[in-house]
Each structure stands twice: as structure tokens, then as C-alpha cells.
């Protein structure tokens, strides 16, 4: 019989039934070594793909989305920010970031056991076992760490939209490095790692509405407040120089977001499918909602508008995707499209800060909309977990307060030491030539 049982067990695992562990001993609470036979090739295939998709969101996706919106003299500098952040955060994640975020530790921060990806072996380990994260039991830990790395990359890259056209490249690197370890890692741990206190509190954040978008958006607000407005803001022409790039970027963000949301299932299963479907519905609904709001209030539907709406929808559905169905997705999308339209077009000008590319207006505001509506629409039938607006609110509040405060302090310190902002002539000449010695024809 035992043979029979093991066989059945093998077969079941091969099918990666998400509840596999129920049939077995207690689930692990830290990275463990498992037999290679417990790895699902199907789940691993999807997670490898998702990792590639999420990296594509940052480079070239986000780089182009932002690059097309700035003036021609700053396009290369804008692309450079995203690309350099991608490289730097990769090294930080290996150094210690992954360990701080995704290994058990205090309610606020993980441990250091995985520094340098220490202990992440794979199948040639003598006992033919390989390390697996306790957060994704059917795929190699290397894949899980890579997948999460792409999230750690795009989050700081999003911030850059708020201070486009005026920050020193060197200061930007220092800020992002500090922010990645002092803000991103702790928040990710609190919300996603089972020992994190917000996770314990029951905050639902499927793919990062709070950890990624609110977090990046509020840091963006802090940075445009500390840095001040662009030279000539409100007087000179600052129209996007090439929305073709922006539309390519928005499209790649959309496509890549399937890896972001459906990949957050950690498996190629029904939940991944439902997450993908909800994502698609919310994105389309938000894009049209923004476009129509604009059409009605300004007289013309614009390319920048529909693209911004799509991103707003993607942001808002991110925390909800694994918890809601397609129809809830449509509703979340419509609300996000309208609210973010108001935030980016009216609120900003009313309050008068220069959030150049609306990192706050789209990501923070959209993330809040999504986090709260997740509390409204998450339901047991669909995802097995019910939502609570109050608990969601807690997650939002903590992120807003800690994220703003920490970012503000880091920026002030850098400003006092090496200085944050480029010289006036550099800003006027354009960052491409003044910072990087390059220009486009």
C-alpha cells in the first residue's frame, strides 16, 4: 500500500494541487530542502516565464513609458534611471535584500540567512534535494528569488517618474539603494512573509498594490516635494516629446503584468488563470474610464489618457487579482480610471506639486483604490479568503506613513550631503548631454 500511496502522492504533486501540503505533514515555515521530485515542471515553466515578463515591464516597458513623456533633451537620462536601477537592485537583492524580505524573522524584518543567496542549492546537492521557499513549494527557490527580484526592481524604478528631469544621477543611485533596503524590504516582509505583522493581521495584497504601488507612489510624492518643481514649470512647454514610446511602454507593462499578477499565484493553476482574467478586465475598464472622463471634460480622448488609464487599472487590480472575479475587476477598473484621472489632472494642479510623470497620482492613488476595494470584493467562494476594508486600511496607512517618512528622511540626508538636484544650466541644457554626454537625433 505504501508504494501505492507514494505513487498517488507523486502523481498528485505532479499536478501541483495547491493544497498538496494538507495531505502531508505541516507546511514548512522557512526555506527548506525538498526532493527534486516535488518540483512541478509546469509551475516552474510558468514562473520562469513570469519572471521574464516582469523584468520586461521594467526594461524596456517602464523605461519607455516614462521616456516618451519627458522632453527630448531628457529621454536618455530617463531610460538610464530605470536601467541602472535594474542593475543595482539586482546586486542588492543578492547581497541581502531577498533575505531581509522573504526569510522568517521579526514582524518587521526577515533574517540574514539568505545573504548572497547563501544556501540556494539545486538538484546536484548529494541527496538529490533542492532548496524551495516556504512561500512557493512547487518551484525551485532560485526561481522564486528571481521572480521576487523583478518586483524589487520595478518598485524603485516607478518612483523615478515623480522627479524626472532634475535629479542628479549619482544622488538617484544612492537614494534608490537606501530606499530598496530600508523601505522596500521591510514593507515586503511585513505584508508578504508569514512572520510579518501585516501579513499576520490579515492584510490582503495579492501582487503588490501596497508593497509596490502605494509604496513607490508615496516615495514619489516625498521626492518631488523635497526636490521642488522643474525649472520653468507652468511657463515653458513640457509636452511629452514622443508618445509612441509611451504607448509601447504601456503595452509592454500590460503584457508583462500578466507575469506580475498571474505569476503571483506561484503556480500554473486556476487561480493564476482567474488573476489574469481579472487583470485584463480591470485594465480595459480603467483605460476606457480615463479616456471617457477626459473626452467629456476636455473634449478629446488622448493617447496619453488611455495609456495612463490602463496603467491605473493595472495598479488597482494588482492587490485584488487573486481574490476577485472578472466582474469585480471591471468595477475596480472603472473606479480606478476615474479617480486616478482626477488625481493626475486636477488634484495635482490644485495642490501644485510637480509630480512630473504622476508616480503618486497613478501608483499611490490607484494602489489605495485597489487595496480598499480588495477588502470589498474579496470573497471566500472565489479565493478562499474574505476581505475586510478596515484591515486593508491598516495596511495602507502603515505603508503611507512609514514610506513617506523614511523616504523623506533619506532624501533630506542626501540633499544635505552630496546634493540632490542638478545645476540650473545642466537642467536647461538637458540631462542627456549634461549628465551622460549623449543625445538623440
Amino acid at each position: 500500500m505504501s508504494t501505492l500511496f507514494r505513487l498517488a502522492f507523486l502523481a498528485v504533486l505532479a499536478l501541483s494541487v495547491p493544497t498538496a501540503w494538507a495531505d502531508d505533514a505541516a507546511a514548512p515555515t522557512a526555506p527548506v530542502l525538498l526532493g527534486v521530485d516535488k518540483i512541478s515542471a509546469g509551475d516552474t515553466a510558468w514562473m520562469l516565464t513570469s519572471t521574464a515578463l516582469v523584468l520586461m515591464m521594467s526594461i524596456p516597458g517602464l523605461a519607455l513609458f516614462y521616456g516618451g513623456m519627458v522632453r527630448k533633451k531628457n529621454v536618455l537620462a530617463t531610460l538610464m534611471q530605470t536601467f541602472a536601477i535594474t542593475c543595482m537592485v539586482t546586486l542588492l537583492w543578492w547581497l541581502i535584500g531577498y533575505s531581509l524580505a522573504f526569510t522568517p524573522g521579526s514582524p518587521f524584518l526577515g533574517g540574514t540567512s539568505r545573504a548572497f543567496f547563501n544556501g540556494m542549492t539545486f538538484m546536484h546537492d548529494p541527496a538529490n534535494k533542492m532548496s524551495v521557499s516556504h512561500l512557493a513549494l512547487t518551484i525551485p527557490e532560485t526561481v522564486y528569488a528571481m521572480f521576487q527580484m523583478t518586483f524589487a526592481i520595478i518598485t524603485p524604478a516607478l518612483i523615478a517618474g515623480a522627479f524626472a528631469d532634475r535629479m542628479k544621477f549619482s544622488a538617484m543611485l544612492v537614494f534608490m539603494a537606501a530606499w530598496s533596503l530600508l523601505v522596500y524590504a521591510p514593507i515586503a516582509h511585513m505584508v508578504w512573509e508569514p512572520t510579518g505583522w501585516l501579513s499576520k493581521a490579515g492584510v490582503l495584497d495579492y501582487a503588490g498594490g501596497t508593497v509596490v504601488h502605494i509604496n513607490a507612489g508615496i516615495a514619489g510624492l516625498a521626492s518631488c516635494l523635497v526636490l521642488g518643481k522643474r525649472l520653468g514649470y507652468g511657463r515653458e512647454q513640457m509636452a511629452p516629446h514622443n508618445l509612441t514610446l509611451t504607448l509601447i511602454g504601456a503595452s509592454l507593462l500590460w503584457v508583462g503584468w500578466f507575469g506580475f499578477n498571474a505569476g503571483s499565484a506561484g503556480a500554473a493553476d486556476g487561480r493564476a488563470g482567474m488573476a489574469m482574467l481579472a487583470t485584463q478586465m480591470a485594465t480595459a475598464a480603467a483605460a476606457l474610464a480615463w479616456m471617457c472622463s477626459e473626452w467629456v471634460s476636455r473634449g478629446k480622448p488622448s493617447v496619453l489618457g488611455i495609456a495612463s488609464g490602463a496603467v491605473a487599472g493595472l495598479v488597482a487590480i494588482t492587490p485584488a487579482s487573486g481574490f476577485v472575479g472578472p466582474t469585480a475587476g471591471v468595477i475596480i477598473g472603472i473606479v480606478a480610471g476615474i479617480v486616478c484621472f482626477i488625481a493626475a489632472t486636477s488634484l495635482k494642479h490644485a495642490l501644485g506639486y510637480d509630480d512630473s510623470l504622476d508616480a503618486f497620482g497613478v501608483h499611490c492613488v490607484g494602489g489605495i483604490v485597489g487595496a480598499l476595494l480588495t477588502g470589498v470584493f474579496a470573497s471566500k467562494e472565489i479565493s478562499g479568503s474574505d476581505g475586510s476594508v478596515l484591515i486593508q486600511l491598516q495596511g495602507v496607512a502603515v505603508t503611507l506613513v512609514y514610506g513617506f517618512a523614511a523616504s523623506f528622511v533619506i532624501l533630506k540626508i542626501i540633499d544635505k550631503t552630496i546634493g540632490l538636484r542638478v545645476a540650473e544650466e545642466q537642467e536647461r541644457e538637458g540631462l542627456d548631454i549634461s549628465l551622460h554626454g549623449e543625445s538623440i537625433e
Partner: protein
Amino acid sequence: MKLITAIIKPFKLDDVRQAISDVGVQGVTVTEVRGFGRQRGHTEIYRGAEYVVEFVPKTKIEIAVDNALVDQVIEAIFKSAQTGKVGDGKIFVFDLAQVVRIRTGERDSSAI
């Protein structure tokens, strides 16, 4: 000799070139320019920020001609470039002190 410069609507360029070659002009130099005048530009809105693009794209043509030809050429441009709507543009005429054809070194009339 004179240099006749005209600021016209871009989509009229082909018509004007046809008209002036009919009166015997062989060469023209054309430049894309931005025009400000009675004709207004347009407004663009990006995420609620209005940018008034005040200029209108115009095309500038420069033609060196013998004095004999000046009036016919002006007439030809005038006829072919006119739409009757605001923004049709202007014709400016300058005196040319000298002309040289670089290829041959010919001067003045024979250089045109």
C-alpha cells in the same frame, strides 16, 4: 538680381514649384519654418496641463532670379499659393549683390 523669399502653407509647396518652373525657374531652396501671425496655432492637453502651440508650420522658399523675371515669379507664387484663408503667408523680395555657382564659378545671372 533679386532673391524672392516666400512663406507659404506646406501643402502648397508642390503647386508653387510647378507654377514657378512654368515661368522658367529651375532652382529653389526650401526650409521648414514656424510661423507666428494672424493665423492661430492649436492647443494640446496632457494630463490636464494645457500647452498652447502658438506657431503654425510653414514652408519658406527662396528663389534667386534675374530682375527680368521678378514680377512673373511673384505673380506665379501669389496665384499658386493663395487659398484666401488667413495664413497664406508673405512674399519678400531682396536685392542680391552677387551670385556664384560653386560648381563652375560662374557669376551673377549666368550662375542662377
